């Protein structure tokens, strides 16, 4: 990972001001410059009210008008994989993501799709794309790393939460309950990937002649309706990528997957050996970020 905020920004070479950071200019910068918390699992409290068992299985009918065989877009195949996974109880699913950096063109479509889907305000970003330049003219190269939440199997963000508002779900996703979160930001600091940011309640049309109504539409995270109007949750809370659990529940792929113009992001159930993501997870040119921290990330990269 780059260690300078400037590398995250494709614009000028200037360092980012605090205002830029607050307004979201820095994307991942907050986390990557933060100190890394020690990893411990001792304080992870089980969330007994996570539903499990047959009631969590979802039956989505096979489409009858969508061609599923032969030459299909990987999105169609992964959605079929998703239907199979959702037919199982939640504890039998192991969501995982593989990002093929050879196919990533650094377009940031995933970043913006995530902002639009989860209605992220300035300063909150779940999936930045980190761009790096290396080499010397004419032997120069550019590299792009999309950076979602790694949904670590040993998540450093979880044990630091004083109110048990964040936990590891049975399907592997690290969730946040905004109604319990007190906004202390311990988790924001604890994440070595910078995957969590705080919602300061800002709007993009702040300071303009006409604040825009779309900014107050409720978002759909976790299948609930979160209305930011009147400073309701998630304003003031820590926020992070949750693999679009609310879309999975509808049989739809995470937004960063569907919007990828290079089809670089693979998503699915690692417990299903026939899934496309399992095929990709078997490829030898695979790396995980900051594995030395013992976080056991569920996101890997093909390089």
């Amino acid at each position, binding site marked *: 990972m780059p260690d300078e905020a400037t590398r995250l*920004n*494709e614009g*000028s*070479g200037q360092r980012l001001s605090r205002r830029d950071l607050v307004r979201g*200019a820095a*994307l991942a910068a907050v986390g990557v410059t933060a100190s890394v918390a020690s990893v411990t699992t001792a304080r992870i409290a089980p969330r007994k*009210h996570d539903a499990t068992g047959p009631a969590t299985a979802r039956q989505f009918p096979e*489409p*009858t*008008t*969508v*061609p599923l065989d032969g030459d*299909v*877009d990987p*999105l169609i195949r992964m*959605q079929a994989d998703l239907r199979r996974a959702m037919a199982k109880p939640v504890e039998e699913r192991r969501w995982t993501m593989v990002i093929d950096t*050879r*196919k990533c*063109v*650094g*377009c*940031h*479509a995933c*970043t*913006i*799709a995530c*902002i*639009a*889907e989860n209605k992220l305000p*300035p300063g909150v970003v779940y999936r930045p794309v980190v761009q790096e330049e290396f*080499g010397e*003219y*004419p032997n*120069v190269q*550019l590299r792009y790393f999309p950076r979602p939440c790694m949904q670590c199997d040993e998540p450093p963000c979880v044990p630091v939460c004083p109110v048990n508002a964040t936990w590891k779900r049975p399907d592997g996703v690290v*969730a946040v*309950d905004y*109604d319990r979160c007190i906004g202390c930001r311990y988790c924001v600091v604890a994440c070595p990937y910078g995957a969590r940011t705080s919602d300061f309640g800002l709007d*993009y049309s702040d300071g*303009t*002649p*006409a*604040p*825009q*109504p*779309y900014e107050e*539409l409720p978002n*759909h995270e*976790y299948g*609930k309706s979160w209305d930011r*109007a009147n400073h309701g949750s998630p304003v003031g809370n820590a926020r992070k990528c949750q693999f679009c659990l609310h*879309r999975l*529940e509808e049989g*739809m792929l995470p937004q960063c997957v*569907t*919007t990828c*113009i*290079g*089809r*670089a992001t693979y998503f699915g159930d690692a417990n299903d050996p026939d899934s496309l993501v399992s095929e990709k997870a078997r490829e030898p040119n695979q790396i995980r970020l900051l594995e030395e921290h013992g976080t056991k990330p569920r996101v890997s990269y093909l390089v």
Partner: protein
Amino acid sequence: MNEPRVDLSRRRLLKHGAFLGGGMLAAALAGEKAAAATQNAILGGGRADAPYEFGDPEHTLYTVCQNCNTGCGVKVKIQEGLAAKIDGSPYSPWSLFPHLPMSTSLDEAARIDSAICPKGQAAVQTVYDPYRIRKVLKRAGKRGENKWRSIPFDQAVAEIVEGGRLFADVPGEEDREVEGLRSIRALTDDTVAKAMADDVKKLLDEKDPEKKRALVEAFTVTHAANLGALIDPEHPDLGPRNNQFVMAWGRMKGGRSDFMRRFGSGFGTTNLHGHTTVCQGSLYFTCKAISEQYEAGKFTGGQKFYWQADTENARYILFVGANLFEANYGPTNRTVRLTENLASGRTRIAVADPRFSKLASKAETWLPLRPGEDAPLALAIIRWLIENEGYDATFLRAANRAAAAANGETSWATGSWLVEIKDGKPGKFVRASDLGIVPAEMRSIPDPKDATKTIEYEEKFFLVWRDGRPVAFEPNDDTTPVEGDLFVDTAIAGVQVKSGLQLLRESAEQRTIAEWCELAGVAERDVVHVARELARHGKQAGVDIHRGPAQHTNGFYNVLAWMSVNMLLGNFDWKGGMVKATTYGYDGTKGGVLDLTKVPGKVTAFGISSIRHDLAYEKTTLFDGYPAKRNWYPLSSDVYEEIVPSIGEAYPYPVKALFLYMGTPVYALPAGHTNIDVLADVAKLPLFFVSDVTVGTTSMYADYVFPDLTWLERWEFHGSHPNMPNKVQPVRQPTAAPIPETATVYGEEMPVSFEALLMGLAEKLDLKAFGPDALGEGLDLRRPEDFYLRAVANLAAGEKPDLEDAVPAADARELEIFTRSRAHLPASVFDEATWREIVGEELWPRVVYVLNRGGRFEEHAKGFDGDRLKHVYGKLLCLYQEKTAGVKHSGTGEALPGVATYVPLRDFAGNDLSAQSEGYDLQLITHRTITQTKSRTIGNYWLQPIMPENAVLMNPADADRLGLRDGQQVRIVSATNPEGVWDLKNGRKKPIVGALKLTQTMRPGVVSFVLGFGHWATGAEDIVVDGEVVKGDPRRATGIHANAAMWTDPALRHTTCLLDPVGGSVSFYDTKVRVEPA
């Protein structure tokens, strides 16, 4: 399925709104949120689960993105009555690969989201932009002073039509009488117009100057009664005063283009001009020259179009000046067709670009060529291909259609045809009958313009050289194959002749490969590698070019050189080779139910255009030796950089009124500040009105700004692009409730828009092109849907009779979804009963079927036929161009080369650019980033964090030499803008200053900046409306826009940028600048 919810909450409505006029959005739509049972499906706790609308067809509308010009199919998702989210449409071949067949049900498609670039997604902020205007604004200060008064639509229309002392309250304009459109439209009788047009054509075609003068004399006698309608009776070829109304546009697609043409026809002006040359004009117009066909004894019918590579099937592509991961046509559709092939190793690419682009990051070879030296690089490759026989000899030998067919080809080239060499210079192809080889024949063909007539002509036959003798042929002969030797240099009956390929070889042999590479600034071994790979993959290889080669003073010949490489490879019409766009028709001319192009009350337009295009200088009564006052463009059109400066110099004639739609020449053009001199001067341009969504960087100089609809609120037929192998027609349609206020035109209420403006003017002028019976007897054109829905009906009905290739009819479920998904649209936009009535009950379900999918798209597999493309070009390719060789440069009087040639950078007078280069050591280029489309995306705030401001990109080696450091503020200056400012002519000068960013991705000696930043309007700065200050947003003013540092042409008195006199392109990448600490 969930109930559709249209509960745009009253609370949100009361709190918000667009800034002008103070009004709220359309009346709140009543409704209630479907109560969801508490399930805790994902998350426990006390909060109830909520339904997810974004997977419902009732909350999904399909349309076409226009946050750039790629035209990706999108689905717009509606939440609480607002366009809340934009995703890729799985029905569109731009967004899913392969895309879903149209037979996929709406219920299933609603749950399949597909790809779309970040800019398209951020268009939510294009429609909900705090700086959008809702009412017509009239200038309340000097031009450019940015003081406005909101006035009723009807008042604005009446003032523009009737004229008068419209700005009597503006100091200095107390007595200025503005001539209105009614007075400018001097010629209203089409019988007179047609007779005048015929006589003007005769005098233009007369070559003898004496006889031409006599024809002018005769004209004044014949048309004595109507001479007052002419701009200048001594120059009847200038046409009627109607031509003094110019209609110009930036981005305009099908449908809106029909409204524009319809108005122009009714008004009787010849001056309808687009913006092509600021984009990649010389790419279009070189390909037009390549596609000229031999018909009835002459070369004609060239298409304004171009080819790109079949990205999904090519094995090897050299991309030149093409930035397809961030721009081009475009990121979403081309990237997906490439990335899997690149990762698997099936396809390899090379990139020629002075800047190491994101595309270059996936290439095996980067050729960091020197800007403007494309032809040397292409000629090096051509020379290598010829010397190493890396060309397709079989393809090139075919001289006519029959020979191409015999080889299994669909197209053929002029490479083997013999060209006459006079005084050492190639000119026309030799004609066999002129040399007595075969007799000429009188022939006749049906007139393509009028089926009742035939065209008689003398067929003189062309020649190739074969087996030691000349062989005569006719290019379109499909029965007798004729092939010719490739490289011929001989004499026939005392006439020296060479083959087209011989001329190309001689052009390539002017320098060695090493010398060409030296000029291009690239390594010879890399160039040879690329040439070898192109040859190795032949028809599955190609050179894919875009703005890079085209936007130079030598753009035409750069493009011709690159396209000549493709002709040598013989890759046209092959899978993996060169593709062209193919579309389903909507205007009724290809079939369908109603021809929408017929215009009642039309006044035949004639006369020289205000940008002097489509006509040779020498034919006109303005001919006065060389150089001409300004350039003439017989081979190109839509010359954007000429529109305003030609008005400023009143050449060929003064213009009294200008209408500009969705364009900002001041911001977009190189040296666009030159346009301000004209636009801010009421003496040069007496009346200027625009259609825009905000007060923009050019519309701020207008007298009237009419609010327009964004692409989410309106109609259009987007068409296709040359990398799309499938036949398509994406349809843009209203998906969001409109922000502007409504107006009443022809008794109908509609949002103020481009269409409302033109129809309002037409109603006031009593033009029959709009209103009752405008589309035929009993077929009114009173509101936009009268046109657009009938066009959709044409598209749905198909091109064959009896609905043989019509789309299916929507079933009951689909009809229900159609209605419910539009519940948030007000009656001024969507009224189902009216819509049904317009298209009729029979076609209505088929129209719904098309609109429910955002267009008509052929299935993926149908784009191919074995090894070939299904939709082929299938015609002659002019490798040597007789028509081009017959044109003279109006600056120098020299004949143009007819074959790919190295032409160094020049000004209009033919001088090299060394004088203005002296003391300026860096070459300025520009590029695009995926988050900005020039002038129109700066208000898309979601995109800002990715690039909050742009910068001047420079190689660290240059910075070391100049003592500059990363991040410091720098100013860009040039010989024609030594101060380094935008002089806005309103008392303000905006410095051309931005941050310096050092990067190894720049070729040393070249600096670049991203287009899209450095605004001085469009919400970036304060304006005054109705006496109140509307504060600008500093986030919209960040960064640098250095176009004003680009060179103006000294030979054109610095009134415009440097330009390509042949292809019309502006010079975007030729200026030498200095970068100084600010």
